[in-house]
């Protein structure tokens, strides 16, 4: 406060219709406020947030030369910004303002009108005393670097990357596997339209590869992230694939030439249902179309005694470099989109369903590969001994909606189970049994798909399966897998012998989600998926500015929702980039260097890594972009060397004095 200036406060009491006025006597509150020191003017008004309400403030600033404003209304979360803007329009610094919450903290939580009014008076008195000490503050600006980092090359990452790249932004797409495509690349058909997953995915994968604005790094991981919104400094570790992406033409002759004439290594892409060679590409449409050598199984890496026929086959291209090493790339980006996806629930965790014990118990993802024409059986649905199943049981909710494993609904299993039921029936003519708790089909065209399945003579039995077992009660069960379940519609226990069991395993956070969370300084919800800033109104934002979420890393969702969310994340990033800068709140902390003793207490206390130690002067310094104004360091500093805008000592003491000096 300038000492020459006289404080002239205006107090505005809002009725909020009857929300406040019904319980707080707004007239007497306004009258009371009018008698307080420095208060030049005091009004009550029906809706302060309305345009006429805001105009009142603007006019009074002009006509009555007000230089401090107090509004007693709702929570500052709702309208602090509205009123600060009104001050600004009226020509006053927007931080010469204080808001009193007499709705959530008085009228809504009290019934006694006299006492509620008295409390409102206390709160207003505190605000009036406080606002006199307010200082003019300016919002800072952070420039936004226009490049974007996208972590994860599944359909979410691919869609976000293309959206941003098409808008002219440069995107770094970092994928851990040797190809992009993610889980979707493994699917055969997609529900509910039964269009071919590869047919709709692979054009987008090729577009990523070809796009001039996308730098694609597969076989790579983000290892370090520094900086803050607009200015992230990221380190990416690129693992060697031993085949140079720039030199390789994708002819794949090296794979044919491998000394392993028989493929012997379990193929991860087919979940171990087929074998591959040590030099391989994950699947025919892999992007990039460049083989990768797995040093764990390649003879040359293990013993150094291979004839290296792959190198000979490559010939003059010299694309194969067995001495390639991992290399680090350092990039600067303004925003980050995390699209790291999910993993499927490990069916071994529910031993009573026999996965890993009985060979013909499969997970749904394995069956996706079986029904896929490019899969290990070229689309034939066969048992492990090569036979065809005559009866198949699909067990829903494996690792979902279960107190013992995961409590959440994985959202996609009902629908993919219906899809697999349709496909298995189509491929084999087998009798299909679905065992479900509830059928959940709440998407566009989903319920219709369910109804269609009902007419395809697929059986639906409502009940959580108790166990999948091989114990036989009578000869018809000999050699079969018996599904024991309480049929909760019919009201008795059934035993259904089948040849093949499909476990509809749920979606869970990736095992390394906690590390990724720490790397990008974001939060996880209790079940381990990344936490969005607001479940409804900020679903792709995180609590870290400039870091956005897309796809199943935020929670289970199907392809339409994933793509929608990826588009939203890209749009949020674009909004920041195109604005060019981000306004920061001025309620940050700052170190008074003369008082700082360099004890570093504040550094360990800061939850936002906003305080750093400046070695040259042996003192702490707050990065005002990272500081969220939580005040932890201010309270923790043993020398009282940290101060915070809008929370200066004189402001806080005046407020306390005001609230406590009840006449």
């Amino acid at each position, binding site marked *: 406060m300038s000492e020459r200036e006289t404080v002239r406060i205006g107090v505005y009491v809002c009725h909020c219709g009857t929300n406040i006025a019904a319980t707080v006597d707004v007239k007497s509150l306004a009258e009371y406020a009018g008698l307080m020191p420095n208060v030049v003017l005091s009004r009550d008004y029906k809706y302060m947030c309305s345009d006429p309400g805001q105009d009142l403030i603007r006019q009074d600033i002009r006509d009555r030369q007000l230089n401090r404003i107090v509004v007693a209304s709702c929570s500052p979360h709702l309208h602090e910004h509205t009123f600060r803007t009104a001050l600004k329009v009226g020509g006053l610094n927007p931080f010469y303002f204080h808001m009193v919450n007499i709705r959530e903290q008085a009228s809504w939580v009290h019934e006694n009108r006299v006492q509620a009014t008295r409390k409102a008076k206390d709160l207003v008195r505190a605000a009036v005393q406080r606002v006199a000490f307010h200082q003019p503050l300016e919002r800072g600006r952070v420039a936004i670097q226009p490049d974007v980092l996208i972590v994860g090359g599944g359909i979410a990452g691919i869609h976000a990357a293309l959206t941003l790249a098409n808008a002219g932004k440069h995107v770094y797409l970092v994928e851990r596997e040797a190809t992009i495509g993610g889980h979707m690349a493994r699917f055969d058909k997609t529900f509910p339209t039964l269009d071919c997953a590869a047919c709709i995915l692979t054009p987008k994968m090729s577009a990523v590869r070809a796009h001039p604005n996308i730098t694609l790094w597969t076989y790579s991981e983000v290892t370090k992230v520094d900086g803050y919104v607009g200015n992230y400094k990221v380190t990416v570790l690129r693992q060697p694939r031993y085949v140079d992406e720039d030199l390789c033409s994708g002819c794949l002759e090296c794979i044919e030439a491998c000394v392993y004439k028989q493929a012997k290594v379990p193929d991860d892409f087919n979940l171990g249902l087929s074998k591959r060679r040590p030099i391989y590409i994950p699947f025919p449409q892999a992007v990039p179309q460049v083989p990768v050598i797995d040093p764990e199984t390649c003879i040359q890496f293990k013993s150094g005694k291979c004839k290296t026929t792959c190198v000979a086959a490559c010939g003059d291209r010299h694309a194969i470099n067995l001495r390639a090493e991992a290399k680090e790339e350092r990039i600067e980006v303004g925003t980050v989109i995390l699209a790291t996806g999910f993993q499927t629930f490990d069916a071994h965790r529910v*031993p009573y369903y026999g996965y890993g014990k009985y060979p013909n118990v499969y997970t749904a993802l394995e069956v996706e590969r079986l029904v896929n024409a490019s899969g290990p059986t070229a689309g034939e649905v066969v048992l492990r001994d090569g036979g065809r199943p005559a009866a198949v049981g699909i067990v829903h909710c494996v690792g979902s909606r279960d107190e013992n494993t995961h409590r959440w609904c994985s959202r996609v299993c009902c629908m993919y189970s219906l899809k697999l039921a349709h496909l298995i029936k189509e491929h084999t003519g087998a009798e299909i049994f679905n065992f479900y708790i509830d059928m959940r089909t709440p998407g566009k065209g989903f319920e219709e798909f369910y109804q269609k399945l009902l007419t395809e003579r697929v059986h639906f039995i409502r009940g959580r399966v108790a166990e999948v077992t*091989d*114990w036989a009660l009578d000869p018809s069960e000999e050699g079969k897998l018996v599904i024991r379940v309480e049929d909760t519609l019919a009201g008795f226990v059934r035993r259904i012998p089948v040849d093949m069991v499909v476990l509809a395993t749920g979606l869970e956070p990736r095992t390394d989600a906690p590390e990724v969370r720490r790397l990008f300084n974001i939060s996880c919800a209790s079940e381990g998926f990344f936490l969005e800033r607001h479940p409804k109104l900020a679903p792709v934002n995180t609590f870290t500015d400039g870091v956005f979420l897309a796809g199943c890393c935020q929670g289970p969702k199907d392809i339409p929702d994933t793509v929608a969310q990826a588009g939203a994340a890209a749009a949020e990033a674009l909004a920041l980039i195109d604005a060019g800068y981000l306004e920061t709140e001025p309620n940050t902390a700052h170190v008074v260097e003369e008082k700082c003793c360099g004890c570093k207490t504040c550094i360990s206390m800061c939850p936002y890594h906003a305080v750093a130690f400046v070695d040259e002067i042996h003192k702490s310094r707050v990065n005002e972009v990272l500081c969220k104004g939580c005040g932890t360091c201010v309270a923790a500093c043993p020398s009282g060397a940290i101060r915070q805008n809008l929370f200066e000592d004189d402001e806080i003491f005046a407020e306390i004095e005001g609230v406590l000096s009840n006449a």
Partner: protein
Amino acid sequence: MSGVYGYFPGCSLKGTGVAYEESLLALFRALHLELAELEDWNCCGATSYMSIDERDAFSLSARNLTMTQKAGHRDLVAPCSACYLALRKTQDYLERYPKIAGGNGALTSIRAVRVRHPLEVLYADVGVERIKKAIMRHWHGGRVACYYGCQMVRPYSEVDRDCDPVRMDELLGAAGIPTVDYSLKTKCCGGSLTGTTHDVGVRLVYILLKEAARKGAEAIVTVCPLCQYNLDAYQHEIRRSSGERLDMPVLYFTQVLGWALGAEIESLGLARAISGRKRIRQWFQPAEKEAYV
């Protein structure tokens, strides 16, 4: 290994399961492990107590646990699965709801007693390797189905995996006794249903026996006196009502391991078996010259 184990036999091991106690003591002697029976032990509080008034049940268990501490034992071996469960449950509830310990908190320390099932003692304290080295007799019986029942593995599953326990299979395997893959190893033996809803109880028994035979087992090996009794005692009734002759020996793991580890045959309580007596006599014959390894 920690010297002496406190031993809580419970009512079964002094009654229907006396063969369990005999063979347990013989086996532990063969392994030079000392069991010291609690003095003046009382009912563990299982079954009816637990379902009518948990506090009474917990009080009974708590007294046994207190006396274990008084006797200076760290471990309390409870061979009966029902006793094992009641004692563990009491400790677990004291842990989770300390209020039930009452005002002076004197009972909180009994959570420290380590309640052990002998199967777990053999697995953890003796170990598969030592069992292998201690074999004194070659098994010349048939394959057996290891049957764990429910109470030992759930919900306090430290003894073994809760739905697919394997430690008895591993121990018997180490002693040279072949086992079959028995999918029903933790399914209900009928429990007290054989006494209340008799038909249902006997049907559960029948399913267990039948499936063991189907998997090629010639005997069932148990860890619980109630399981053993149910499976053993109703075979004649099944024969009378269905004409089906099962003749399946139902043994304690302590009997077969005791035999393999060289305990005196007479000390194993084998003569107390009801079903499959002929097979038992053949398998556990005292050879003219003992086939010591």
